[in-house]
């Protein structure tokens, strides 16, 4: 089960927050000038859109047979986050290399049903306040929906900015995360498909 708010707070206090390099990313919107926080100036538009990872060397296609996959059925698979993370994060992905906007009616309906089922399962875990379901799609064209569990009891970690705590908080210990992933996969498999952890 996920840590209680008190256990999470104790661990964060003991290890300290990550020296996150989020702030160094090109997409980070803020900067400090003369000691004051301000939005970065917007740079002019580029001539070409930022390219996404396509079918060639697609990390999502490549991840299917790996141990990151916790569940699969004929059309979809669910993976754990690709790096250590401060929040419980899962991905729902198609087995076929297609973009979200390319889903046909049947796959779109199945996506909707799995979104609700997975959201419900994660949200029912103890100490999870809310589960965000998000399609960005700016990094890779292959469909990957984010499921981000927000911990209960921290008013600072709430709403769309809550996602940033994935990199700010120290990573969830494997002995906490592993059993939660197993539990989620087992519950998903009661609705269909096969648990892989």
């Amino acid at each position, binding site marked *: 089960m996920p840590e209680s708010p008190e256990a999470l707070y104790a661990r964060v206090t003991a290890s300290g927050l990550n020296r996150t390099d989020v702030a160094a990313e*090109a997409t980070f919107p803020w900067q400090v000038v003369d*000691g004051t926080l301000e*939005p970065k100036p917007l*740079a002019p538009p580029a001539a070409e859109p930022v390219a996404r990872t396509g079918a060639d060397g697609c990390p999502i296609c490549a991840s299917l047979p790996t141990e990151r996959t916790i569940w699969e059925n004929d059309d979809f698979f669910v993976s754990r986050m690709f790096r250590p993370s401060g929040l419980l994060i899962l991905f729902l992905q198609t087995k076929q290399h297609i973009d979200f906007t390319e889903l046909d009616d049947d796959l779109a*309906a*199945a996506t909707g049903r799995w979104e*609700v089922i997975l959201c419900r399962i994660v949200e029912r875990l103890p100490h999870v306040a809310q589960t965000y*379901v998000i399609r*960005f799609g700016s990094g890779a064209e292959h469909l990957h929906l984010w499921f981000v569990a927000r911990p209960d009891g921290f008013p600072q970690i709430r709403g769309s900015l809550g996602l940033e705590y994935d990199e700010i908080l120290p990573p969830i210990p494997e002995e906490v995360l592993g059993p939660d992933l197993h539990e989620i996969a087992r519950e998903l498999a009661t609705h269909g498909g096969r648990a892989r952890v």
Partner: protein
Amino acid sequence: MPESPEEFYARISAAAGADGRLPLPDMSDWRQFPWEVVDGTLVAKVLQPPVDAEEPREGTDPCRVCRSYGSDRTIWENDHFFVSMLGSHSLPLVLFLQTKEHLDFPELDDDLAAECGRLEVTLCRIMEALPHIGRVHVMRIGDGAEHMHDWFIARPERFAQIIGSLAVEWDEILPPVPEEIRRADAHEVARHLATHDGRALV
């Protein structure tokens, strides 16, 4: 049609003034804003101890989402869902997909979940096909109100800074999209959506 990246940039540059600096938005005062400046350096705010009980989300009494149905923000409906505009936004287009019934996202039954999935894909596809839109983010956050409301946030194309999970913060930083542009785009989206299902209300 949404502004081209060049038009978008020209409008923002005009609002920013000569040094290119936009004013610091209210967002930086939010409790949920994760950053602060300490000794001239940007750092993550210290995490405060957990509270005994979180502030509840908006429930049924009164529910902003229920009340908004039928207002001039509603642009499309079918028997189970309706689509609304956000009151004001700075990214090119921000719409909500909502159930007519007061239900939370995890409470959707199998049929509504399937219909929700189809509408998410259709609406995302329509918005992404508008000129000058880079990508459409589809988000269920659900922290503010329990009544299901999926966000559809269109980000502009060709701005390397406005991309990915942080793109939504620019909606607070940039000046709002002019009313006549966003209304016309919402009408276009509603008209397209109605060729698949339901009725356009604008």
